[in-house]
């Protein structure tokens, strides 16, 4: 569990998912679980986000888009790959236009399993991501302290 004094904001991108995992990501935000009441917001602007939630696998066309969104996010940032497709390519891994999971393009911190991933699993993944975020935050603070000391 994390003790970060802030609520994480997410940016969601649908790489080449079948929509199954996407609507489950949205289902987390709507009345079934309503994570917005804890301050977890799904926002459109990558520059405001701490956690990058990716569904679906990588293909030639969206490779640069994933990279672009990732680059726009401010440090520290965490990537959550939701669903079998985002983790490894899933059922489509042998398709000619699928290059595999998201970790081909950007470093992934948390993998959420399932096809489609259940909302409970997605929320669990985001909570784990918070732990990673806190770690990265601590590290960056330490680094900052060291450099300022020198």
């Amino acid at each position: 569990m994390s003790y970060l004094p802030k609520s994480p904001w997410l940016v969601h991108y649908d790489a080449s998912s079948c929509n199954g995992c996407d609507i489950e990501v949205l289902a987390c935000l709507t009345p079934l679980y309503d994570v917005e009441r804890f301050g977890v917001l799904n926002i459109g602007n990558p520059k405001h986000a701490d956690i990058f939630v990716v569904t679906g696998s990588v293909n030639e066309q969206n490779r640069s888009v994933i990279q672009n969104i990732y680059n726009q996010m401010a440090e520290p940032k965490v990537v959550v790959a939701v669903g079998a497709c985002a983790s490894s390519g899933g059922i489509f891994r042998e398709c000619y236009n699928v290059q595999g999971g998201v970790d081909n393009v950007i470093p992934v911190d948390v993998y959420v399993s399932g096809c489609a991933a259940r909302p409970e699993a997605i929320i669990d993944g985001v909570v784990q991501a918070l732990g990673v975020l806190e770690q990265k935050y601590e590290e960056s603070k330490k680094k900052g302290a060291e450099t300022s000391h020198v």
Partner: protein
Amino acid sequence: MGKRTVVPFGPQHPVLPEPIHLDLVLEDEKVVEAIPSIGFVHRGLEKLVEKRDYQEMAYVSERICGICSFVHGHGYCETLEGLFQVEVPDRAKFLRIMWGELSRMHSHLLWLGLMADAFGFESLFMQAWRLREKILDIFEQTTGGRIIHSVCKVGGLWRDVPEDMLKKIVETLEGMEGELQELANVFLKDYTVQKRTQGLGKMSAEEAFECGAMGPMLRGSGVAMDMRGLGQSGYEHLKFDPVVEQGGDCYARTNVRIREVFQSIDLIKQAIGLMPEGSIENKVKGSPEGECLVRMEQPRGQVIYYAKANGTRHLERFRVRTPTFANIMPLLNMLPGCDLADVPILVLTIDPCISCTER
């Protein structure tokens, strides 16, 4: 003439969870031209038939799209049943109708929610999605999955639904009717909502037909075309009239979809009432051969499945033509001349499903 600017819309955009990219050419606030580029979700799924045998392909085709996953699984199985020339038992047919109509309800409710979100009515969005969860609960109780059900197989179904569950489904749906009506009232009678949807994206019947619109897009313009009226896959036993509205604008299309939700409840009740006892599967043997084409009505319009087999366990060719692909053309006709602020509503009014389109 004002100065022209190009505003990119997508592929990562807050209004749509799915990636589609439009280059909007603007003159002041008015759109003059919209140039789409697609291919962000293309996986090349049809070619998987070479690697997966015909039974496994049923699971793959369900993943064409996670919103109408049942319909895609069903359509694929029906195409293969055409190749094998087997007819599924009546019970299986009616169960398929039940799940198909439940898919339609959940798809339309999802769309209503996204539409409300597009014109900035957050609480209405939440309401629609809250009601949708009840349908997903039914799916989970009967098939085991919320989104991907994997319940259809070539020749029938993997699992039956017990009688008491069927009764419960009818009760749940009847209980929902009141709440749905409340939701519908906001969409159809609220002044602000009307202001955003009425008169927007107008298409006459000829225009809609000419540019190949499908489903609620076409029926919202007064053309009564619905593949459920073909009298196949069990619909011939049900009382069914396509929902048609004359307005041809976003308001009429919203109305069509709302009325279809109620129609689906009615069809499910009819199907459950007619459902006979008996087996749910006619086993298929051997390998498929020949060609078959099936047309069906998806929540978004007509979908076509084509399969060609050569007597091996792997199909030679599998092709799907989905309604969103047909509906992109009317969208490009509607966009020029509209305000930039109306673009999200117009994009949503076709009920885009990009992952269907690009597969």
